[in-house]
């Protein structure tokens, strides 16, 4: 029992954190938005060079064989930066799923994805749209009982504009005959469910990053902004609001990290922990973003202030990969059918009850 990240885990995240700190500041976001382009090509090239495409792919499938717990801090860093590019979605969710199917038909696509020459967008029934479908080379679409792999050029993608300028959502239609049905074998539900849980877990991680960024932006502003002859950050009401947000963050973080570690169990206990993490992180992000707006005063309502990028991402991710209602249902299933009490915090199976 050791609830600390290993040095390797922290180093992986540090690499991403340093990269986005260099290349994904709010000014970069504004520049990308003004350009109307879906990617910052330079940043995306640098991200691809990190080789994280294969991070969560098993070693026998040509990957690094890492686990969600090795990747969760990477997702936090992406949230903290409000990263537009699909590092988390493609590398954390889609590619590992495609590789896990072991489909021979998809082998070439997997190979291309692992070497960074093919981008995969993932559609799951929990999400009404497919993010960044237009710029992907392939669409991996989960549906009841299987997976379709579709060349983007064979699909019709209709933009569904989001308030978040970087989300780029699409409804997708395609001729099933043109799709590669790759997940018809029995047992595909497990990998799809795990991919969904990774989606939810890494969304929670991004939300936690967003929450901390909102606090940090608010703190920076509150130290500088003077009213009535002193920094507004010296007023107790403002201090207590931000302290309340930080408490939410502090008690969402260990849940997120435990959920990451437990995710591979793939049972009711681990799923409830993922759901708990998403609920806690979303609550923290919501409170943090609203408080950051409030601390910035009228400034927070304006486009000039960076908080709005994070507010919008928080609104979107709170409903993505299952909204609060869905995740509370999974927690309820755990609570009302599973073992309760202090001796079950790290329980692995329901049978332990």
């Amino acid at each position, binding site marked *: 029992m050791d609830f600390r990240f290993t040095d390797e885990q922290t180093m992986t995240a540090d690499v991403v954190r340093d990269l986005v700190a260099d290349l994904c500041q709010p000014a970069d976001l504004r520049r990308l938005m003004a350009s109307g382009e879906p990617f910052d090509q330079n940043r995306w090239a640098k991200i691809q060079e990190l080789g994280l495409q294969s991070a969560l792919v098993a070693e026998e499938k040509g990957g690094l064989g890492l686990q969600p717990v090795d990747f969760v801090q990477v997702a936090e860093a992406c949230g903290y930066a409000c990263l537009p590019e699909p590092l988390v979605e493609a590398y954390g969710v889609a590619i590992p799923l495609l590789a896990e199917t072991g489909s021979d038909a998809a082998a070439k696509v997997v190979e291309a994805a692992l070497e960074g020459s093919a981008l995969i967008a993932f559609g799951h029934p929990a999400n*009404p749209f497919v993010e960044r479908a237009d710029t992907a080379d392939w669409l991996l679409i989960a549906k009841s009982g299987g997976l379709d792999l579709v060349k983007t050029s064979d699909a019709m993608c*209709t933009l*569904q504009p989001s308030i978040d300028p970087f*989300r780029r*959502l699409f409804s997708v239609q395609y001729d099933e005959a043109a799709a590669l049905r790759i997940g018809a074998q029995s047992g595909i539900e497990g990998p799809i469910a795990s991919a969904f849980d990774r989606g939810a877990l890494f969304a929670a991680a991004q939300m936690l990053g967003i929450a901390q960024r909102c606090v940090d932006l608010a703190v920076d502003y509150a130290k500088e902004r003077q009213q009535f002859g002193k920094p*507004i950050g010296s007023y107790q009401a403002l201090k207590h609001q931000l302290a309340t947000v930080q408490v939410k963050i502090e008690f969402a973080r260990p849940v997120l990290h435990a959920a990451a570690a437990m995710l591979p169990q793939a049972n009711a206990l681990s799923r409830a922990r993922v759901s708990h993490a998403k609920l806690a992180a979303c609550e923290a992000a919501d409170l943090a973003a609203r408080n950051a707006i409030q601390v910035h005063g009228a400034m*927070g309502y304006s*486009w000039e202030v960076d908080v709005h990028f994070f507010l919008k991402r928080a609104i*979107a991710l709170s409903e993505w990969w299952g909204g609060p209602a869905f995740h509370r249902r999974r927690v309820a299933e755990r609570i009302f059918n599973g073992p309760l009490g202090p001796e079950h915090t790290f329980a692995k199976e329901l049978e332990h009850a």
Partner: protein
Amino acid sequence: MDLNYTPEQQTFRQEIRAWLKAHVPSQPLESFDATRAGFEAHRAWERTLAEGRWGMVTWPESYGGRGLDLIQWLIFEEEYYRSGAPLRVNQNGIFLLGPTLMEYGTPEQKARFLSAMASGDEIWAQAWSEPQAGSDLAAVRATATRDGDNYVLKGHKIWSSRAAFADWAFGLFRTDPASERHKGLSLIFFRLDAPGVKVQPIPQIDGETGFAELFLDGVTVPVFNRLGGEGEGWKICMATAGFERGLMLRSPARFQVTARKLVELYKAHEDEVEPSVRNAVLQCWMDAEAYALSIYSTASRLIAGGHIGAEASTNKIFWSEMDIAMHKTALSILGARAELLRSAPEAGDIGRWLDGYFFSLAGPIYAGTNEIQRNIIAERMLGLPRA
């Protein structure tokens, strides 16, 4: 206590209801904060209202009003919001400056400004804040230097609502250059197209441009444009803030219509949402009702000669927090569609909830932050000691 409308009040309600039915545009107007065209469409609507003498029913007939009382104003507002009529592009004029002009203006000023306000011929922006004077309004630095019968204005105003397209603005200026804080300020009007005024719209997070920055560099205005005595600006401004926060800035009907729409949204999606959302919807409706009842109570007191006090601050806190709660609840009902723009093909019935949510987040900030309102309540209503 008598909560029955008089026959006259009922007749009045029917009259305005019938007029609105005949005149409210069948299609919603374009936003007055997004384009000049939208702004002018709203000005045209103000003129239509004025033709029916509905510009500001509480004002005397001589200024385009009907000389009615606050209860009748509330009835007017109820029917106005019920009808889905356009938002009032001139709210800074009719609801904020107008009542203050009525109290502090000279007969000549009233004649000059009020009728043009009620008629929609002159649309007003406010110019309270400066970059270093937000919550701390007394930190105003903009100056008005006396030059014979004129003032020359210099300074930088910000968060000036409607200023992108409006005709006039009012704001605080330091008329005594040696003064500090609340002293030596005067409330002065200026045209936004006057030489020396530069208007710089501020994009908002919803993509509209409801606010602007104003750069004033040697703007000459006649002394006639000063409301109240020289140096009395703070006192008069506080009176305006009382009206603003207290009663007219947010008429209860607005929230009751939002609550009604929220209930309709909930009913349409009842089967998809968590049972707990029901309680949130109930709470929003109850809060909108409570706000309406409270305003009726205040209006009754004011009609009987009372004055508005710290309840202006309780109102501000209540409606701003309620407004956020209503919009958050709506977003939770919309679920994953909440993030869509209305232009999205799959937007369905998402309406303006997301825009409204962003707007609601500004509620605790403008017209005096809720932190300041809570200080006021604690110190003036409860008598707690100042820090």
